[in-house]
C-alpha cells in the first residue's frame, strides 16, 4: 500500500505538481495499479529469464549539429545567445 504521503514525496522528486484534492485520487488509483503489478512477484529471477543487455557505443566524434539559432528558436526569451532558466537561488 502506498499512502498519500508516499505519492506526495514521489511528486516532489519528479517535479510534478499535485493538488491536495488530487492526492487522494492518485493514491487510490496507484494502489489499484500496484496491486495488479504484484503479479510480477511470482516471476523467477536469474536463469533463463535474466535479461541479456549490452550497451553499444558510437565513436566520440564531432559531427555537424544544429545551427545555434535553431537551438534557441523554441526557447522562451533567450538572452545574448543563451537560454534562460528559472532562478536557482
Amino acid at each position, binding site marked *: 500500500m502506498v499512502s498519500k504521503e508516499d505519492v506526495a514525496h514521489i511528486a516532489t522528486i519528479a517535479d*510534478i505538481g499535485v493538488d491536495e484534492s488530487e492526492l487522494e485520487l492518485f493514491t487510490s488509483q496507484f494502489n489499484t495499479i500496484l496491486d495488479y503489478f504484484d503479479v510480477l512477484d511470482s*516471476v523467477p529471477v536469474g536463469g533463463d529469464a535474466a535479461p541479456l543487455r549490452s550497451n553499444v557505443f558510437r565513436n566520440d566524434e564531432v559531427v555537424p549539429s544544429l545551427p545555434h539559432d535553431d537551438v534557441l528558436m523554441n526557447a*522562451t526569451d533567450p538572452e545574448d545567445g543563451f537560454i534562460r532558466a528559472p532562478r536557482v537561488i
Partner: protein
Amino acid sequence: MGSQYSFDHPDPHNAFITICHEAEYGEGPLSGIPVAVKDNISTAGIETTCGSNILKGYIPPYDAHVITLLRSAGAAIVGKTNMDEFGMGTTTETSAFGPTLNPADTTRAPGGSSGGSAAAVASGMVHMALGTDTGGSIRCPASFCGIVGLKPTYGRVSRYGLIAYANSMEQIGPLAGNVRDCALLYSVIAGHDPRDGTSLDLPAPAPLKPEIAGKRIGVPAEFFGEGVDPTVASVVQSGIDRLEGLGAEIISCSMPSMQYALAAYYVTSMSEASSNLGRYDGVRFGMAPDFVRLWHDAYSHIRKTGFGEEVRRRILLGSFALSAGYKGKYYAKAQAARQMVRNDFARLFETVDMLAGPTMPCVALPLGETSNPLSMYLADILTVPANLAGVPALSVPCGTAHTLPVGLQLIGKHGAEDEILSAALAFEEGSA
C-alpha cells in the same frame, strides 16, 4: 520538388491537430500522395505537440528520419494527427486537443494512441498515415477503425526525430486502408539510420505478393483468454478458419508468459517515460516557465499545468517503480518477465511461422467511458507482447462484432514483416 498538393478536406472527426493546406511534394513512389503524420514525429517547420499542452507552439528545427524518407519518396505531408498525450492512452481521449471520433461510429473512440492517424485513413481524408506503436498504438486504432496497421520489428524503422515515450519498445509504422498501401508506406520508411543507435541494417523489403499456403500459424490459447469479448473471439476464430481455408496450417499452442506481459509492459513503459519526460521543463522548448519562481517550484508548476492527468500518473508511477527500495520489486522483475516473453516467442517460432489472434479483446469503446486507468490498461493485453519482444505485428480487418470493426493480429519473427504482410494480403484478397 516543387509541386503543391492542396489539402482542403473538412475534418469532422478531429483527426488532425495541424492541417497543412498547401503541401509540397516531389517525384518518387509516393509522388503526390497525401500522407498524415502522428504529432509525436518531428516535422521541420510544422508544429509538433505530442497532443500535449506542454509542447504547444513547439516547432521542430529538424525532420525525423522517416519524414526525410517520405519527402524523398515524393509524399505530400498534409498534417499532424491527434493522439493520446505523448502516446499514453488507448482511446485518443487524453489529447489536449479534444477527442477524435471513430469514423465507423462517431459515438465511439477510434482507439489509441494513433487514433488521429487511423481516423484520417478510415474517413478517407488520406490513403495512408504514420503512427507509432509502443504497446499497440498502431494496431489498436487500426482494429477499432477497420483499417490495416503494422508495428515493424524494433530497429527496422529509425526513431530519429520520434519524440520518446518508452524508447525500448516504440516503433514508427504505417496505417492504411488496405495491405498494399500499408506495405508501400512501410517499404519507404524501413531502413538503416546511423542516427538511431538501435537501428538494424537489414535488406530492403521484398515486393509484396499474397502468400499463405503452407504457412504454419500458431494460435496461443492465451490470446482467447479471460477478458476477450466472446463475439470478438468468434469473429477472429472465423478469420483464422479462413486462413486455414487458404492453405495455412493452424497449430494450437501456449504462451504462459502472457500472465506477466501487461504488468511488465506498464512497469517498463512508465519507468522509461518518467526519465524521458524529465526534459519538459519549459526551458528549451514548449510552454514558458515562470522565471521568478525557484526552479523546482517553477518546474513542478509547469509540469502540473502542461501535462494532463494520465501523463502525470505515469510519470509518478514510473518514478515510484524506479525509486530506492522498489526497483527490485517492479523494474527488475518486469525485465525478467520481458525476457520470458521473448523466450516464449523464440520457442514458438521454432515450430510456427507466425502467430494469430485478436488484435484487441473488444470493439471500439464509447467516448468518455474509460475513467478507470487500470481497465484502460487491460485493453492492451494482446498487443503488448510484440512490443516487449520487439517482433513485428499487424492488424488487418476480419469482420465486425456488435456492428463495429474487428482486427485480426498476425505476429511474425524478428525482421519478418514481408511474411506477415504477404499473409495479410492473401487474407484480405481471399487468395493464397
